[in-house]
């Protein structure tokens, strides 16, 4: 049976999350590659501003870790068009993350093949110290997500698995998600080799399922709340106007922020 998935397809956090949200959306966006530029929410402009500020903040941190003079970076942050960027950067400089030791690789992209499927992930920072890998993820969300939701999040589960597979390591791996609006309460997840294997198995099964589906198996989600924040709404005859900010539940909000912030999977390509 011929798979619907393109032969050069690369799985990532955002396309897997899309699949779990709606198989048909995955089909349209990644298989049919259908551009459908309707609004995702009434507040697209706000999301764009947030995303751009977030990108500039990540850039400052990347510059910090590759050796730029912090005073020069403070000056850049002071002149940033979004005043939040300076606050965020000062918060970072005052945090323990500005003093990390060990081998540090900022904006590290990992591309690897697991069970004949290709994956790509991009870590904000990867640290190797005292026989342990730690992945850092800087977040500039407007709302702090709850821990239970993060545990089940594709990103939380995928990032450590890809690291262990790509580096062929059985060492335990930590993932630290640092929300800039809650700097003193980072989310720290530790993964034993058994947990990594269990998660690896989950992703193998998930990807096997995706590549085995027939076109008709990519059906529309039954959860029509998803359609309110989906650009393909009109294509699927599932509504006219997009969601307002107030319409969104916390989970949808975080998904959208993920979409805006991480939809950069092809970052190392032309």
């Amino acid at each position, binding site marked *: 049976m011929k798979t619907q998935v393109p*032969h*050069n*397809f*690369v799985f990532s956090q955002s396309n897997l999350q899309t699949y779990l949200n709606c198989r048909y959306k995955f089909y349209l966006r990644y298989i*049919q*590659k*259908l*551009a*459908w*530029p*309707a*609004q995702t929410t009434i507040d*697209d*402009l706000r999301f764009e501003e947030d995303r751009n500020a977030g990108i*500039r903040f990540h*850039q400052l941190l*990347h*510059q910090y870790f*590759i*050796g*730029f003079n912090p005073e*020069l*970076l403070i*000056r*850049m942050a*002071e*002149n*940033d*068009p979004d005043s939040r960027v300076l606050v965020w950067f000062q918060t970072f400089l005052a945090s323990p993350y500005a003093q990390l030791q060990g081998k540090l690789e900022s904006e590290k*992209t*990992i*591309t*690897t*093949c*697991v069970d*004949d499927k*290709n994956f790509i992930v991009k870590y904000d920072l990867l640290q190797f110290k005292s026989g342990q890998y730690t992945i850092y993820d800087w977040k500039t969300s407007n709302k702090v997500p709850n821990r239970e939701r993060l545990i089940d999040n594709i990103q939380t589960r995928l990032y450590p698995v890809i690291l262990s*597979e*790509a*580096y*062929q390591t059985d060492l335990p791996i930590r993932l630290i998600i640092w929300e800039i609006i809650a700097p003193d309460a980072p989310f720290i997840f530790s993964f034993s080799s058994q947990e990594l294997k269990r998660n690896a198995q989950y992703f193998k099964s998930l990807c096997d399922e995706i590549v085995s589906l027939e076109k008709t198996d990519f059906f529309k989600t039954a959860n029509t709340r998803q359609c309110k924040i989906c*650009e393909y*709404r*009109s*294509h699927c*005859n599932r509504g*006219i*106007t*997009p969601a307002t900010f107030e319409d969104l539940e916390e989970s949808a909000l975080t998904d959208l922020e993920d979409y805006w912030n991480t939809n950069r999977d092809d970052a*190392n*390509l*032309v």
Partner: protein
Amino acid sequence: MNPERNLVLSSSNKIYLHGEASIGKTSLACQRLQYLLSDSTTADQGILVLVPQRSHATIYQNVVASINSPHNFDLSILTMSSLVRRTVDLFWPLISNISGFYRPYEPPSFLTLETSQYYMGRIVDPLLAKGYFSTVSLSRNRLLGQLVDNLNKAAIIGFPHTEICDRLSEAWVGKDSQKRVYEDAQEAINAFRSFCLQNNLVDYSLQVELFKEMLWQNPLCKNYLTQLYKHLIYDNAEEDPPYVHDFVADLWEDLQSALVIQDDYAGYHSFLGADPNSATRFKSMAQETIHLENTNDFAQQKRNLANIFIDFSKPVEFKVEDIHAFISPANQRARFYPEMLQQIAESIRTKIEDGVSPGEIVILSPFLSDATIFTLKTELSKHNISLRALRPSSSLNDDPIIQTLLFFSIICHPEWEIPIDPYRITSTIAYALSSFDLIRSHLITQEISPKLPVQLPTFENLSENVQSRFSDEQQAQWNTTMAWINANLSVYPLDIFFSKLFGELLSQPGFAFHQDLESGSSTAQLINSFKKFRHAFGYQLDIDQEEMAKEFIKSVQSGLLAATFVPDEQDDDENSVLITPVMSFLGLNKIVDYQYWLNVGSSGWYERLEQPLTHPIVLSRHWQRGRKWTAEDDLAFSKQTLEKYIRGLFNRCRKEIFLGLSDYSETGQEEKGLLLLHYQALIRRALRNKEDD
């Protein structure tokens, strides 16, 4: 295993690989990439695949899919422009305060070619009003394009932009009034550069200059890049300008391995600064040189045929039948151009009926008109053959989907007071609202006041006579449309407006874009274009959204904004015949069974475009300053160009080339350009041989 393959399957040598097009150079490079990615010691060390154009990346991206090794690979597939832009963006704080920018600690705004031309227009318009460039007969867009091109040439070749006028003047042999034009150009260019520095605008020329002169000299940046890339595969080096070769040459010592590939006889983008001569430097730098040559009989015959096609003085040993077996008129010589297009469509139909895949057929011309595409599309569609046109430089405004979006944006923004042609109003309503026809649309158009702004009437405001001509369905759809328009007046920024228009109205059931896949990509393209336009205005909070949106609409309408976006999949559609300009086809690195050449008598196959403000050869690194550009130089340039095209097209054809010949060209003229003359001379010489026999 052949010796070439042995050499490329290595992670420690530096190779220069060259040969004709379609001989397998890129396949060898893909094997090397596969080898590097499969080896856990090299895969994580940083591999850079450098390509001259985005479209060349796909083949290397596909290699990634074939890798089945469970280790990390650190691969970047980039064009040099992309690498430069990212580097300038990342290292901006290190250089912005020493580069003359007025606001060095604020983020820069990167300009695209289009937004550069827009800003150049703001500099040039007051100059035009003062009488500058008065002796030049060029459209405004082409004038702006050539000014920006001059700046870019100075950067990529490597001379100060302030020398452009001097260099062009030194080579000029005609009337002195042209030198005044060069001075005008220099003044505009200098003012543009000052404007960019004042407003933190970084156009392509500034990106290249900042990269070459500052970042690549900065130890932090240089160390970062040299640590990032340890293995290099550089394909089609001849299509890049010399500054890229300088960069690779500088990187050379720090690389653990390198494979530089050059296509013999190419350099098709020389008008944009591509420099094949500069690329040959890697031959002497490499440890190994591999020359690939196709030695099979057919390839040898094509090579011989190309040689005698190009050179009148060479004896022709082929019989006419042998020549026609590879290159021949598509059918009987037609009198008129449309007749010839019909013959070509018929010939293509026969080929496909005989089992040829449509993807193995390409129709080529030095330039492509809408009429040619439309005619061929119509003719081929009669036989269920699909035709896809690839015209990377066509204007956004040529697309009816874009025209529809512009129409509604003008209607919804009465404050712009932009007029709309009544014919356009009629045709757009009939196109956009599925229940409407041209008659009903025309009735509405007639009810519109000629005063600006253009305002569509509600159903109640239509005369009773017109109302009575509407069906219930039409009335309901008109009401829906008008309700949406009235609820969305003056929405800014414009990209949000386009998204709303697309999602809430035009892609809904009963409207033109519903389920129409092409409308999605065209709308996305327009939105993307506006976003770039908006971002070029920087991060200033006091931007006049109304003025900016109006400027954008005018720029699209004037054709300034081009549809440069080419979806990756376009190259791989095997179910349709491709029609494209010759230059675009040569840039695709694609080989097909059959080629159909149109406008064979045209001088467009070899002549330089009329470029009174710039010059691709005079502004090249090899031009000797002080030399004059003469008519002989022009002729030699034309012949070189024709030779490059002929060899390139011959090498990209597996079976046959058909010439579309007609007595009168598309414009009704009898054209006898060099290509036609060379072909006729070839046949004459072959016939003479027959007579001699």
